[in-house]
């Protein structure tokens, strides 16, 4: 079987698997701050199990869109439908510094075995040794792992990731990409990833949605197995296209 047909088969299987289950359905969404339009005419659908990367320059409205989907901003116009359990991970890991790592993950869970569930999740992100640690003693990467565990422990259908790796060093970021993919393969939540890093978007997403001036300016579908080779011819072409759309012309530059 050639690579292309195998990819097509994977996609077909996934599409079948999730047929009819839309996790996000946004139609004609608009949002203005004090009369200044930040988002307008946004149509965006995310299927169950799909990874969508939302890229754009600062101020393109990508974080605003994510906040609306997270239910943190209700001052929008148009239709927004989010189905199922939603979990959010922020750029700042946003842990409660006065709660130990395990309690941070278990926060808001109501079941009796909340601590056991939190422990299991922390082991999955590789932090089994840090259950009783205080958040302020963690490294940036570790804090983000806790944040991921806190999102995953809610068994979400949709994970909203707001530039969660933006503040990490390059190596840690790559490790986090692997971790996210591994977790996604096991659990298959839909993921909406906000990022300004074209390479990150292309490494992870099934679909890259580019926002500019509050509108969807461009979309790229990426039908490649993960982990992906950065040098893959298809990816190089997409990278150049996306960077051009973003107004950057050097090949391979990261915004």
């Amino acid at each position, binding site marked *: 079987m050639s690579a292309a047909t195998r990819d097509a088969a994977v996609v077909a299987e996934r599409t079948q698997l999730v047929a009819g289950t839309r996790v996000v359905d946004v139609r004609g969404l608009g949002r203005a701050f004090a009369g200044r339009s930040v988002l307008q005419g946004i149509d965006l659908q995310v299927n169950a199990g799909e990874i969508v990367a939302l890229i754009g320059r600062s101020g393109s409205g990508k974080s605003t869109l994510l906040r609306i989907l997270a239910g943190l901003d209700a001052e929008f116009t148009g239709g927004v439908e989010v189905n199922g359990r939603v979990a959010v991970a*922020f750029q700042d*890991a*946003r842990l*409660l510094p006065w*709660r130990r790592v395990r309690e941070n993950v278990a*926060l808001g869970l109501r079941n009796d075995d909340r601590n056991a569930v939190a422990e299991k999740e922390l082991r999955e992100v590789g932090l089994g040794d840090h259950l009783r640690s205080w958040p302020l003693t963690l490294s940036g990467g570790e804090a983000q792992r806790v944040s991921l565990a806190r999102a995953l422990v809610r068994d979400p259908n949709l994970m909203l990731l707001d530039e969660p790796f933006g503040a990490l060093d390059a190596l840690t970021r790559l490790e986090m990409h692997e971790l996210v993919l591994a977790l996604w393969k096991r659990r298959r939540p839909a993921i909406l990833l906000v990022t300004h890093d074209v390479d990150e978007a292309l490494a992870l997403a099934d679909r890259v949605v580019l926002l500019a001036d509050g509108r969807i300016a461009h979309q790229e579908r990426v039908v490649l197995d993960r982990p992906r080779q950065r040098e893959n011819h298809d990816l190089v072409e997409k990278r150049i296209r996306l960077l051009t759309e973003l107004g950057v012309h050097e090949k391979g530059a990261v915004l």
Partner: protein
Amino acid sequence: MSALEQEGVSVTSVRPGRQEALGVEIPTRKRRPVSLPLRRPGRRFRRLISPLVVLILWQLTHTFKLISELKLPPPSELTTTGWNLIAHPIPAYGSLQGALVISTQRFAVGFFFGAVVALILATAAGLSRVGEAAIDPLVQGLRTIPLFGLIPVFLVMFGIGDLPKILIVALAASVPLYLNTYAGIRSIDGKLFELGRVLGLARGELLRNVVIPGALPQALVGLRQSLGAAWLALVVAEQINANSGLGFMIIQAATFLRNDIIFVVLLVYTILGLITDWIVRRMERRALAWRPDLVAQ
């Protein structure tokens, strides 16, 4: 007590980079270079040297008849006076332990009510705009009233019983605790409330996990100030219109020119203040264990 605290270093500073990374802002108090003194056996006693020298000099003023012992009774005499006040009390003063019990009770009752009211008001003002508009101007106004100016007013209103003293103590305790708790709640990063919404925390969970621990460092600063203010208020209130208690003992002693008794009572006040301060320090160490400089120890 940790070695750090013995050195008088306030152990509450936080590396600035980390708190930003976590999206929290932590009120830092005194920030001193922490040159960790390792616990050496001599250190504890080294700090006792200068007080001992002062005590010896004080005693020598008596030995060499430098100052009249009526004005400055030497430590040796204070020990005798203290013992006599306990073992052989005379009616003019009453017993030291009796006065101690009465004063401690007034303090405890007044402080308790003052603190409870302050915490309730601070929470209401800190968490709701309506509460802030209703409560904060009143407390800010109350703060500017000279507390001890109220003592004669209370004398007219409530007589010379326990009530006016308890009220003065309660007022003195409530103001710093209110101000600091309110500021503590307001200093909590709004992002953490946002997190609470995302996680679907109920009101009680938000209070328990975000508001209380977030405001606690500042509230504990307020608690210490409150304790100091409340002891001071008690001393003054008991000296102006009382017929029992430590302050009353001082006034009686002054009438009979017994400076030695006054010194003994002041010493008792000092010990009481030190004990309450020590309790708050213990509370701080437990409640603020999450701070990295404490974690590192």
